[in-house]
């Protein structure tokens, strides 16, 4: 897949360093990226031949751009800090898991647990995301161009999940304070997750998220979901909700 416009602009600004994962292996690629100083001038990298390998570009901790030139396996961009990672293909389970900051963009689809437990930053999935997207999210913003599978935003604590397509069963089960926006249909809501009023404040926030994700959609087409906060403190009369 070709780099998108924004990336192409960035690519033109500086020299892009290519690393061949087939030759250097995951360890070799990650070692080079991990040793970069925060103020490095080697700011733009392309990982060639990712071959669906696992743990590519995980644990990055510098404001660099890393393009993955194909499909990635599990945990690509895991625990990312500051880096902008662009996956020009599909991503396996746990893409951008526990991300702290920065951006991870997936041109294709993402497997289960995308953005799991993420604390910050932005995860953009242009295609669909499988089950448990945003599970236990703790502050990350996730924008999905397509649909998400069942149990997405399970125990979601903080942050935003934007779904431009449909959501599977049990959306937002046992949700805490995360905010969910869905444009399509929702198969079912999980325990303690309810539809909430969309105010101007929420429309503005959603517009900013869509803009940042570079996904064109009208915020007014979305519905908002969040926690009813009835399960925050155990009450025996709510036991059948568990």
């Amino acid at each position, binding site marked *: 897949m070709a780099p998108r416009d924004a990336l192409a602009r960035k690519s033109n600004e500086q020299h892009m360093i290519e690393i061949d994962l087939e030759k250097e292996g*995951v*360890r070799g690629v*990650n*070692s080079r990226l*991990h040793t970069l100083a925060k103020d490095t001038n080697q700011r733009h990298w392309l990982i060639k031949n990712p071959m669906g390998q*696992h*743990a590519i570009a*995980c*644990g990055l*901790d510098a404001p660099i751009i890393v393009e993955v030139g194909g499909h990635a*396996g*599990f*945990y690509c961009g*895991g*625990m990312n*800090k500051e880096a902008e990672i662009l996956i020009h293909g599909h991503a396996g*389970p*746990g893409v951008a*898991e*526990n991300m*702290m900051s920065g951006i991870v963009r997936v041109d294709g689809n993402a497997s*289960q*647990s995308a953005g*799991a*437990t993420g*604390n910050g930053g932005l995860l953009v999935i242009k295609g669909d995301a499988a089950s*448990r997207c945003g*599970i*236990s999210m*703790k*502050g990350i913003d996730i924008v999905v161009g397509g649909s998400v599978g069942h149990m997405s935003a*399970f*125990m979601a*604590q*903080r942050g935003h999940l934007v779904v431009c397509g449909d959501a599977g069963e049990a959306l937002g089960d*046992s949700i*805490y*304070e995360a905010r969910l926006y869905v444009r399509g249909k929702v198969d079912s809501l999980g325990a303690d997750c309810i539809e909430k009023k969309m105010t101007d404040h929420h429309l503005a926030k959603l517009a900013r998220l869509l803009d940042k994700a570079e996904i064109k959609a009208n915020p007014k087409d979305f519905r908002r979901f969040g926690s009813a906060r009835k399960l*925050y*403190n*155990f009450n*025996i009369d709510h036991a059948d909700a568990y």
Partner: protein
Amino acid sequence: MDPNTPRTTPRKSATFDDYTLSEIRRAATTGIYDIRGAGAKRKLPHFDDLLFLGASISRYPLEGYREKCGTNVVLGTRFAKKPIELKIPITIAGMSFGSLSAQAKEALGNGATIAGTSTTTGDGGMTPEERGHSKTLVYQYLPSRYGMNPDDLRRADAIEVVVGQGAKPGGGGMLLGQKISDRVAQMRCLPKGIDQRSACRHPDWTGPDDLEIKLHELREITNWEKPIYIKVGGARPYYDTALAVKSGADVVVVDGMQGGTAATQEVFIEHVGQPTLACIRPAVQALQDLGMHRKVQLIVSGGIRNGADVAKALALGADAVSIGTAALVALGDNDPHLEEEYQKLGTTAGAYDDWHEGRDPAGITTQNPELAKRLDPKIAGRRLANYLKVMTLEAQTIARACGKNHVHNLEPEDLVALTVEAAAMAQVPLAGTSWIPGKGGY
């Protein structure tokens, strides 16, 4: 009836004993199951059911105060670039900031550091106090991922991926709202005062094949430096150990049902899992069958109380043990000098286990600043260090008596069992016989 007619003595049911009756009444009144801290309290086959044989004509002992008996242990020799070396084979188990006060966590770090061993974070992340006072700190990687971040991961000396724990194999956790202070809430990204639930499964992997990939990711993020432990509750110790090895663990931690918890349902603690004694030999057998015994280290926890327990666990094949409840007692938990305050809480010293309520008069299992400041981290840490040193001396005493110049040289042949059950579980002969239940067709 003639008052002189003999009457039978009032007889209480063994099935419906006083405790059972009180629990039925409590449940009927409150409508909620009982939640408490600590591990299984019921009588279980345990290390007390084993005895060392000591030296005799066929074995000769080492001189108690002159001949050396080593106690060091190296953990993480399989894959980690930087295995950790401890002076003693007794580590401090994972206990969270949140369930424990910051002072208690600091004291655990102080005591472990003085004694030359490691301490472990818990479900809630790493505090600066804990890192600062712990020379060797193991960072727990739990299903909830509360407080998890790559900086602390790299600051740790080892990583412990928690799959389960002995008090509740297959269960998650619950920290009740009264212990979710501002700081705890901030670390866990939750609103203050709500019940904090911890998931029972990890959010981004399922099964041993995924776990292997997860470990690979953690190693990549930490430059393959840190030993990675996998902790399992005492459920299926043979297969869990084998699968942990398959997944790439450097160290396997097996926690029996006497292992403590901060807060779990009583029914879970007492009725799910296996006793520690029953877990060790199957775990060792799995390592031996894979040719990995002593290459992947085994840590055993759950009800370790003294040097004899340490020596027995090592003799059965463990490389080290871990203590939690005993460490809290060493800090000052359940101390009789607080009896008056325990009475006010409706309990008594030695029985206090409502750790989840945050009203601990010892200042250990609380987030109440007034209670927490009762615990002096230096004094409590010193007490823990003393206790760890005594346990080590006791284990050395036994090892020397068995003719061993290192505690790791203790072996099952040094042991006999007092009961048939213990003999079967530990796979050592019943005392006075050569009978090992289940061996030789019997």
